[in-house]
């Protein structure tokens, strides 16, 4: 890279030191969660300093075992998985064709970019502004404490990712391939389904992963619309604060269980994260 100029070794050292500080800072909270989940409950706050496992205490998997064998946790995990996957499938099924249409066809009544911004504005909407009508509507349809309600709502709120990002990526795909296919007798739908879509598979997988992660992390709707049967993992986590006070060891275990799936997914789609989270506005 052209940026490198002659630097004193001390300067380089300081820079690496700073980078290490930053990375430690970024990871400390996660580290603390993992470490706390491995401590025996009695020792949660008695081990001083940064609590290095094996050095300062003997790690145990007891908390994990208890947690993973609890029926409620398993049910909540399952709900989270079902909601995240189903909502993502709906968002992708609706959003990708829309994104394709916005990049390939001309809309006259409302211009393409205005439609795009309109879809985007769904993300601007603060969820708390619609949580009450949703609550009443779902109560009317007897869908309170039902995963179906959460699936519908999360599909709505992740739809903008699918529409806008797929539009931006289709935009960069040369149209000639599809035109050639149409000349060869493909219908417009086949040109989309057989030509354009397969070429964008990696990006679309990344978009799906972002939708899954956002749905997984969603809390306000899940808290408001479910109680026991359909509660997702974050809501279950929030219930850990029970009458016996906060049980930090279980909380730590559950937070790590909650954060695991979205963070691991994120690592798989690193390349697409900047583009995905900025709705294609910044190319990563």
């Amino acid at each position, binding site marked *: *890279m052209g*940026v*490198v100029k002659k630097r004193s070794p001390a300067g380089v050292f300081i820079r690496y030191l700073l*980078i290490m500080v*930053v*990375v430690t800072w*970024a*990871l400390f*909270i996660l580290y*603390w969660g993992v470490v706390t989940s491995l401590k025996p409950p009695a020792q*949660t*706050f*008695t081990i*001083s300093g940064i609590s290095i496992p094996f050095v300062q205490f003997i790690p145990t998997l007891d908390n994990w075992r208890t947690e993973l064998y609890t029926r409620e946790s398993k049910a909540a995990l399952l709900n989270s998985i079902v909601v995240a996957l189903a909502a993502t499938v709906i968002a992708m099924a609706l*959003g990708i*064709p*829309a994104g*394709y249409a916005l990049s*390939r*066809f001309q809309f006259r009544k409302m211009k*393409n*970019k*205005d439609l795009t*911004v309109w879809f*985007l504005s769904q993300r*601007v909407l*603060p*969820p*708390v*502004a*619609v*949580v*009450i*009508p949703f609550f*009443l*509507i779902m109560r009317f349809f007897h869908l309170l404490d039902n995963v179906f309600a959460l699936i519908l709502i999360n599909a*709505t709120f992740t*739809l903008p990712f699918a*529409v806008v990002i797929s539009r931006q990526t289709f*935009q960069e795909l*040369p149209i000639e391939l599809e035109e050639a296919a149409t000349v060869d007798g493909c219908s417009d*739908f086949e040109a*989309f389904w057989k030509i354009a879509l397969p070429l964008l598979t990696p990006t679309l997988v990344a978009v799906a992963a972002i939708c899954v992660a956002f749905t997984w*992390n969603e*809390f*306000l709707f899940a808290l*408001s619309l479910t109680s026991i049967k359909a509660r997702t993992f974050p809501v279950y*986590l*929030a219930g850990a604060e029970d009458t016996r006070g906060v049980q*930090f060891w279980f*909380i*730590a275990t559950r937070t790590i269980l*909650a954060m695991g799936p979205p*963070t691991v997914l994120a690592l798989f789609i*690193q390349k697409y*994260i900047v583009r995905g*989270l900025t709705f294609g*506005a910044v*190319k*990563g």
Partner: protein
Amino acid sequence: MSALRSRKIKYFFILPSIIWVLAFTIFPLFYSLGLSFFKVRLGKPTHFVGLANFERIINDYKLVNSLKVTLLYVAITVTVQIVLGILLALLFHQETKGKSILRALMILPIFCTPVAVGYLGLTIFYEEGGPLNSFLMSLFGAKIPWLSHPTWAWVAVLLLDIWQWTPFCFLVILAGLQSLSEEIYDAAYIDSSSEWEIFRKIALPMIQPVVIIVLLLRLIESFKIFDVIFSLTGGGPGTATEVFSLYTYRTGLRFFDFGYASALSYLLLAIVMIIINLFFKRIRAVYE
């Protein structure tokens, strides 16, 4: 845009999405607008009260508090995140060994479940023997009442949010810096200006569009803040950290005053819309 076709099939592609959005966001918004004109008891609209719910807004000191908390929170976190994001991007935007691993690690906080971050915050800010206080004890012999003191609880919330979202600002701004061609930097070095000057006169103006996008996205998301505060402080102590979303949530879904809560959500919507409108031209230009 390349040759655009105009065929009927485009409606087949786009209408399902449009109908879905209309059904799931526009309809509830109108529903809630309607509700805001009603007195609601035990979750059932009883009678039409006209603008009474909106009049109540004016005299609601708890609301004024929550607005103050929210605006201050948004202003501080977004500013700190962006400034830190720029600084970190500059730090990493140089030949660095293991850069891709470091960058991957910085992605992690962004995707952490916010409500879980709040609960981890409880253990980290724990006053009797939590890691932060035991560190402060050994260093200064004093501890901080992180969660029992109004101001410190506020600081704790800010710290967690800054922890989670600075990496996002950093990643996007770094991507912006790296998209600038190297020739620009090389040319700048030949002119041998100082590094600060290169940053101020060349890099900063060129990454400005990216910074504005980050700013906008963070503004939008920050106004939604709910999860971390719900789990870390529950709005307390007292109402020191009761942000707008939390106040509205409580009014509506804890006290079941749907009419007033609907009026409150419209107020939030209006505030967010005003702020977004300031940026509207820029957003539109991105999707040209």
